[in-house]
């Protein structure tokens, strides 16, 4: 748990963490490390163009300031972190089949608060921002 956030106005070029595609343990470790901090996360799953664009858009919506809690994780190989994903709390029953989400939004306490469905269309900026907002409401 990250109880304290260091204040800084530092701008980051990106707040998007792309998990490695060829090292599952490392991907899991990185994912767990992110979950261990008090962050509001959009976790984008898959290696499609749609997923990449979704991660890029979500990255823009973080606002880029290091100290703020919004971050984005892109897991191109969803199976690498599946063992962890299925342990996450989902009180709303949003995810019944982990093949369906294109992205999920996690609250500060790592609870699933929104799910963007994988339906072949590109999620809009508004839809992704709404997901962030839903996770922050927690």
């Amino acid at each position, binding site marked *: 748990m990250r109880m304290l956030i260091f*204040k800084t106005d530092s701008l980051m070029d990106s707040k998007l963490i792309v998990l490695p595609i060829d090292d599952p343990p490392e991907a899991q470790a990185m994912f767990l490390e992110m979950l261990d901090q008090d962050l509001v996360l959009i976790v984008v799953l898959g290696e499609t163009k749609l997923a990449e664009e979704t991660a890029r*858009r979500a990255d823009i919506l*973080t606002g880029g300031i290091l100290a703020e809690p919004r971050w984005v994780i892109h897991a191109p190989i969803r199976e690498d972190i599946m063992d962890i994903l299925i342990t996450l709390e989902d009180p709303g029953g949003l995810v019944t089949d982990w093949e369906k989400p294109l992205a999920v939004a996690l609250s500060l306490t790592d609870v699933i608060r929104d799910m963007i469905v994988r339906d072949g269309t590109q999620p809009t900026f508004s839809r992704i*921002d709404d997901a962030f907002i839903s996770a922050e409401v927690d």
Partner: protein
Amino acid sequence: MKNAILLFILLLSVSNVQAQLITITEMDESGNHRLLAEGRQAIDINSKLNIVVNKNAITSHVDSELISGGSKAVDSLIAKLRVYKSFIQRLDAAIQQYTLLFDASGDTVSTILLAPILRERAQAGQSIVRLFPEGARFHRRREEELPFVAGKGSNENFRIILRLLAEEIQFAENDLAGLRKQAGYYFQLAAWFVSSRGTEPLHIDGFDELAPGDYFHFERNQLYLTPEQLTELQSLNSFFEDMDESNVFEKFADVLPGILAKAIDEELIQAQIAQVKSNINGLVTQARAEKENIIARTNEIEIKWNVLRQDMHNLIEKYTRNEGATATLTKSELLRFFMDDITNVNRQISTIVDDIKGLVTSVDFQALGAGVNSIKTDFTSLHTILGKQAQDLLGHAREGYQFAVYGRQINAAALELSEEILKLSIDNIPVSTVLDLHYAGKRDPGDVLLVKAMIWKGEETSPVITEVRDYPVMNALPHIQMNVAYSFARPISIESNWKGGPLVSILYKFKSHSLAYRNFMDVGIGLHAASYDFNNDDTPEFAGGAVLSLFKDYLQAGWGFNFNANRGYWFAGLRIPIPTAPVSLAGS
């Protein structure tokens, strides 16, 4: 910043239902600004008035009118605006809280503190986003804006929501404006100046096509004695013999007799009494005793009326010749005596009214037979006329009293609106304007400036809402005033009688916006120069010192030193009632 201003303006637009239509600030010659919050308030005679039109209040009034007139469209728009307002306030506060958290001192932020603030911001934003259905303008605009938030912090995403909601408020406002326009509402702002010349309309930039009035600066820079004062000074020794008090009460010489003469319509009452007598004398009846009773009591009423008439004539004569003022030194005393006289007259009228009433109720008119109805009507008519005129008399007297204390009284409802006053649609009302009293032409303290703001609807002949402000003008700023007086000095340390002699004083007058204070107390402090003959050698000696004045300088007292006699003295003096010109310290 721009957004914050926009937001502020928008919020105001939905919270001004009971606000005033105009806000007026006085800018006096000394550069002071004073908000004129009351309907009637004295202002300086050379001031400028900054008039700000509260457009939000106007639209709110119009909206209330429309709603009360049954406009559901307006009702729903206003309800929507209220909801938007509450949401926008909540989100704005949440964004600020979030900013403050990171701006506060210290290097770290506790996530325990962060979580609720993050939640509040998100909930506030979410509730706004959910107001609008899918595909709505709000969502399209949000999608256009969000790609450009990179590097601006997450607050920017919420500021977009805030801005877009503000846009929605603006759209709702525009819809409201359209409905108002459709209903034909318009606004007028007019001003008049009421002086001894009568009532004249004044030009207000942006609100009428009247020509500006004559420029006139109320001159307060006369630090010298006028020729009239010099003449008066020369004849000071015969002051008491020659004194003409008409100047003291010049304002009232015209007013007081007029009050008495105009309030009571003597001819009408006289004619009414004559008719009553004629009808009762001509009445043919068997009830002789009853008829005699009425005649006797009518005669008594006539006698009382004749006494009253004579008293009225005496009073009119008395106040026309200012005899009422001979025993008085201040306006307040004159007014008090006048009000006493009026009260006496009123009491006499009341006695007559009671007598008539007693007569009508006690006499058995039925016993008189035919023709009785006209007699009873005559008495009732006389009773009504006298009662009303007694009321008028008191009313006029009070008006006269208020005129003296507070300046002119105006019947604002009777003022006519010139065709040159523009009828401005709500959208085209100028935000503010300046009314410069210098362009009100020649004016004197006690004159009144009147400003009237009105909202009209269509072709209706009276305004939906009227707001009237009247401002008596006065010499309100600190100024210096010269006066001549006749004084009596008592030399110090020797046994001597009071010595009379002329005195000139230069008095500093304090700033005051109270007409009652200026007209009565009007304290002054300053210096004096006087000429006495302490040695009794018939040669005037030069003396000077400090002076304190009261009651508009009619009473002056102080301490001085006789330079020729080398002796100090105390003195008391009376101002000679001639006009003097006060001098402003603030003006050029």
